[in-house]
């Protein structure tokens, strides 16, 4: 029910933006539409691989090892392992999510999974090398990396404190 609502909201946003673009001009509207659809087609194979593959990943991941290293009992050590694992996982939109969903299913603790996802989002080495370093000024990149270092640990600590999710 809630999911249905979220998806409805998503399409309301699409409609509002499309309307705003159409008011500004027909070409703007058509270009936006075309680019959105092209992006979608480009993403399609990655989504298929990620979503369909993650079920098999979950089935193959050894639950006892996951539970020992990243389980709810693994505490701060598990968070550290998760952060290092997240930084070393390849970038791309689906990888981190499918791995963490699989880990959660095979017995990892929520704070550890949050730490993994956040570290992956912030530091994935491959995205860092391919996108960030070539585009952004060097000093700024180092500033961002250092300023972000505490974040996965803080998030995991907050999750442990609140006892959620």
């Amino acid at each position: 029910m809630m999911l249905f609502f979220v998806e409805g909201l998503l399409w309301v946003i699409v409609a509002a933006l499309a309307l705003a673009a159409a008011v500004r001009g027909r070409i703007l509207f058509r270009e936006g539409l075309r680019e959105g659809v092209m992006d979608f087609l480009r993403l399609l194979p990655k989504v298929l691989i990620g979503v369909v593959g993650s079920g098999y990943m979950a089935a193959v991941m050894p639950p006892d090892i996951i539970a020992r290293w990243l389980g709810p009992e693994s505490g701060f050590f598990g968070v550290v392992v998760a952060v290092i694992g997240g930084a070393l996982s390849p970038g791309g939109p689906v990888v981190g999510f499918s791995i963490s969903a699989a880990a959660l299913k095979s017995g990892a603790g929520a704070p550890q999974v949050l730490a993994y996802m956040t570290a992956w989002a912030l530091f994935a080495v491959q995205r860092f090398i391919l996108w960030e370093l070539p585009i952004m000024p060097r000093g700024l990149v180092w500033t961002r990396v250092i300023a972000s270092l505490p974040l996965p640990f803080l998030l995991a600590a907050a999750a442990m404190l609140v006892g959620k999710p």
Partner: protein
Amino acid sequence: MEVEQTPGAPPPLIARRKRKPFDWSTAGILAVMATAATIVYFRDGRVRFFEILSHDLHLFFDVLLKVIAGCLIGAFVARLLPREAVTRWIGAESGFLGLLIAALLGTFLPGGPVTIYPVASAFVVVGADAGATVAFVTAWTMLGYTRALVWEIPFFGLEFVAWRILLSCPLPILAGLLARLIIRRMPHWEPKP
């Protein structure tokens, strides 16, 4: 990437790069997933293999509509964003409010690294400071709503994602403040407009 600045005309805020439909990282993931599927087939048998396949294909069709909506939002927002206003809000003198606005922009501006890093470097060109730029990139990374809607909710369910985002809310601002502290120690790291 160098963005040229001409007086009076702000640089393009969204510079899009063509993405290849298939790259090496995707190929790597494909190899890992295929290996996992093969192991399941031979270890757990055909029935289990097709059980997982049908469940995941179901999930895939469930996600499709969200992905196309996310792509359309990204394309339209990139064309509708008021550039002059954006650059005024997060300039070097913007203080704490600038961090807040930068974090909000990062949250609501859709797109992947393909769009976000060029936008961030455009911010620098028009005079945003390191704090605002870091808050922007971090908010995009941790709070970006298209990513949460399109990717996370199908994998984790609404409650998990809602808690993650709620607990993450203060973090981009914190990163922005830390970045300003770091720049005070390392002034030569401050990006030059």
